[in-house]
């Protein structure tokens, strides 16, 4: 079992790697760019430059963002004593890869096409292994309990042909796995982060489902267990107006993410701000660990910040490439 003190070296390495993170000035320069080529030129002066140079097509930035994330994850793997910490951050990509392969499989049975181009190397499980396991229906060696989840998904699809059930099962698996991973680690901060993340995800889902007009019974399967707020409380909120959610959840920390909700005229505009404030709230959960030189949570904090940075870069580049209003882009940017 790794002790917190073993993280002295890892945290030092992370502090050194923080130089790779874009500072507010770089974001400002990106935002001030007139068009996509000039924004990419600005980006190429940062840590993303190495990957941008490798792009064969002009104005391509997505592979560079992916490559930078891949580099950061593989670097973290080298010096972080507990693999669980970075596995936690890479799990959503595993789930994404599994969804791509399963949907491809289902599509193929209906005469459609598979989309191998959508697979990403950012996950924990090597893409080739995942493809081999799912294509050959030999799930035995799949890690993280996917050897049970994937056949269950296939069975669900064959019974009902309802992709939403499969999606829900995999989303549920993502959060239960994250809880399982932090459960075996002796770091309270990591556990705290995952539980806050589940709360935040539940609130986000709640807002989306309420906007879509779901009733409590229909919405219940979309929420995840393991957060600080009980599922019953979350489900009951669907019948309440959004303005009251902050007051009703005042006992929980996640209510901070709901502040300012009264300023919105409708749920459409609210969603945009809610997603940003949820990300900022989660950054805040981890931020308090940054001043401890031995806190393993620094790993999570750094990787989370990198993910948020990648999201911000994508927001700016996609927005500038499509001529979006800069005020709108600024509103979408997460705090890094």
């Amino acid at each position, binding site marked *: 079992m790794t002790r917190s003190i073993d993280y002295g070296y890892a945290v030092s390495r992370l502090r050194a790697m923080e130089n790779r993170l874009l500072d507010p000035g770089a974001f400002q320069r990106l935002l001030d760019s007139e068009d996509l080529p000039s924004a990419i030129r600005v980006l190429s002066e940062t840590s993303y430059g190495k990957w941008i140079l490798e792009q064969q097509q002009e104005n391509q930035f997505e592979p560079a963002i992916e490559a930078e994330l891949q580099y950061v994850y593989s670097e973290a793997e080298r010096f972080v004593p507990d693999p669980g910490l970075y596995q936690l951050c890479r799990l959503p990509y595993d789930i994404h890869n599994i969804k791509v392969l399963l949907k491809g499989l*289902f599509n193929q049975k209906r005469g459609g096409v598979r989309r191998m181009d959508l697979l990403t190397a950012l996950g924990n499980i090597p893409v080739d292994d995942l493809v081999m396991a799912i294509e050959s229906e030999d799930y035995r060696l799949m890690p993280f309990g996917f050897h049970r989840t994937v056949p269950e998904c296939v069975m669900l699809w064959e019974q009902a042909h309802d*992709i*939403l059930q499969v999606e829900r099962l995999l*989303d549920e698996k993502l959060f239960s796995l994250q809880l399982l991973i932090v459960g075996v680690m002796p770091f309270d901060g990591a556990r705290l982060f995952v539980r806050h993340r589940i709360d935040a995800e539940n609130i986000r889902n709640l807002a*989306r489902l309420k906007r879509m007009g779901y009733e409590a019974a229909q919405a219940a399967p979309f929420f995840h267990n393991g957060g600080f707020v009980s599922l019953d409380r979350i489900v009951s909120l669907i019948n309440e107006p959004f303005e009251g959610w902050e007051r009703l959840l005042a006992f929980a920390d996640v209510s901070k993410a709901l502040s300012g909700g009264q300023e919105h005229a409708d749920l459409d505009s609210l*969603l*945009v701000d809610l*997603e940003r404030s949820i990300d900022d709230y989660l950054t805040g959960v981890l931020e308090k660990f940054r001043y401890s030189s031995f806190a393993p949570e620094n790993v999570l904090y750094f990787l989370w910040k990198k993910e948020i940075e990648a999201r911000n870069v994508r927001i700016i580049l996609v927005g500038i490439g499509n001529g979006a209003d800069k005020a709108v882009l600024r509103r979408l940017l997460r705090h890094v």
Partner: protein
Amino acid sequence: MAKKLNVNPNRMELSRLKIRLKVAKRGHKLLKDKQDALIKAFLQKARTLKDLREKIEKELEECYRSFLLARAQTFPAMLEQALMITGSGLSLKMSHRNIMSVLVPVFEVEQGDSSLNYGLGTTTGNLDVALEKFARLLPDLIFLAAEEKALRLMAVEIEKTRRRVNALEHVLIPSFQETIRYITMKLDEQERANLSRLMRIKEIVRSH
């Protein structure tokens, strides 16, 4: 000058040509009326469609703006993955409507339940907003497509009718008239020749 037809100059041909001229003139009038009515309907429809198109383009811009927000905040592969399988259906029934002998398509759209078909874990709320807006706009888009197709078909029909009217007005009717004039002249000439021949014969008979 109109080209005369290559026909035998006899009375039978003359009367046949006179009938054809009468029919051509009547056809010309009818086609001219049809052309005028079509142009009137076309212009009216075009004006209505311009407004509709502008309205739909505005709404479409709004849809794409929402989709852009979703795209900007999501890993692109995840966005595409979310939309790989769709469960909602749309049935389209097609029939035809006759507008002055132009068969224009009429679409009846029946939109199925636009239920959620992707997980909420790897997508953003903007995607819900964008897809909902697209789904709402779809019947209007199909209606616009049908109306624009009708407009295009009407334009083709107007063009065809205009050609026919012009062909009748500038080619067929003048050539009939020219041919009739030619046959009449020919017949008159024949009659005059016949008359002078008879007079000459009479003169010869009288001198003997």
